[in-house]
């Protein structure tokens, strides 16, 4: 159990895939206009990394070395397509909004990175939890960025209005910059900065 705990501490805080490893930034910037998109994207990626890690780890002693990257990619792609199919069946609107980004999980460096760096060298049980941890580490950042951008950019959270109407009548306006990708970039920078100052993301304490 303590190993799994350590994995989680590592992926969520010390070596967070976005904040420290700087992987998967592209989708993190693109889909985080609303919190819901961030949540679904985070969940989708967590499922894909966890199961790709599990499968690849199970097969690691049989995969021919020369074609291992291709095999990893085939497995990842298959998982992504399955997740995409489920989204189209059960969360149609969100899947429309995420458009190409679900498909692009295939090229998300976190998935490939964990398969190569962890699953090829560790047992299935640990690899699975490493996948969950990295997926959640990614999701946490997406949820943070998505939440902040939705509150200040659209005045709502999960589609529910939270900035009260009287503020708008008093002259408050939603910040248009929040909705645009550049602000996600700035926000991400701030999050990395804060995390490092607090000792995470390989900051001062570690």
């Amino acid at each position, binding site marked *: 159990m303590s190993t799994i705990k350590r994995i989680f501490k590592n992926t969520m805080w010390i070596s967070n895939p976005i904040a420290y490893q700087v992987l998967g930034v592209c989708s993190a910037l*693109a889909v985080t206009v609303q919190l819901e998109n961030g949540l679904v994207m985070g969940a989708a990626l967590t499922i894909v990394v966890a199961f790709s890690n599990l499968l690849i780890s199970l097969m690691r002693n*049989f*995969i*021919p*070395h*020369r*074609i291992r990257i*291709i*095999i990893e990619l*085939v*497995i990842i792609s*298959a998982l992504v*397509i*399955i997740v995409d*199919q*489920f989204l*189209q*069946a*059960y969360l*149609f609107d969100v899947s*429309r909004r995420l*458009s*190409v*980004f679900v498909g692009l999980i295939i090229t998300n460096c976190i998935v490939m990175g964990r398969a190569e760096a962890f699953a090829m060298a560790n047992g299935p049980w640990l690899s699975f939890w490493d996948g969950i941890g990295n997926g959640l580490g990614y999701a946490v950042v997406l949820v943070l960025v998505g939440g902040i951008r939705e509150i200040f950019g659209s005045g709502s959270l999960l589609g529910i209005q939270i900035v009260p109407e009287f503020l708008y009548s008093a002259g408050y306006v939603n910040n248009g910059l929040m909705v645009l*990708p550049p602000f996600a970039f700035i926000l991400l920078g701030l999050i990395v900065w804060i995390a490092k100052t607090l000792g995470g993301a390989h900051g001062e304490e570690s």
Partner: protein
Amino acid sequence: MQSNRYTIAFAFTVCVILSVLLSATYMSLKDRQELNRKLDRQKNILIAAGFSPENADDVGKLFLTRVKPMVLSLGGNVVLGKLPEQIISEESQNLFPLFRISKADNEEETESFVYPIEGKGLWSTMYGYLAVDPNGKIVKGITFYKQGETPGLGGEIEKEWFRKNFIGKKLYDGDKLVGINVAKGKARDQAAYKTKSQHMVDGISGATLTCNGITKMLKINPKKYGLFFRQLRRIEL
């Protein structure tokens, strides 16, 4: 280092297993996805016509009470006993779906007509619906329900700020079909704006090719329904 035979056999096995898995997933979710897509199309027809359905029940109810689906022949006549979803792809060259939206208080009176539009953008074929007034001349709304344009640039065509510019614009100049020109940049900065403002909307910067596609789409698609509307206007005279 493994032998070539092992490598090939391994790759082959992995591919077979995964393709079986993928087909199984697809087959088991197909019905549900098809239902979602159908609902989405109905929702877009309603949105084009100016409704704002909140959920799936709303869509179903509104569609049943206010929308009358029908099919037109090449000559612009209504084909009796045929529904839009029954058109098979070989017939789609000669048969055109049309949706009549009735007024809230009188089912016989027409509030607007909605028909599907499609055309090539930069990367993809864009599919949508166009709502027009009962004469078929003035745009009452437009939606896009399927497109693969660049998110954030061409993909913006789905957004309300872009779509609402079309409302009230004229497809016809007198009896001549001119379509609607999606300008490069702001419509009012164009030289032709003075005389053609009724046939022009603002474009999306960074998405000129997508916008050109829409301009083309709004010239080609209304043509298919021209005969129908001409006959309709003649009857009313």
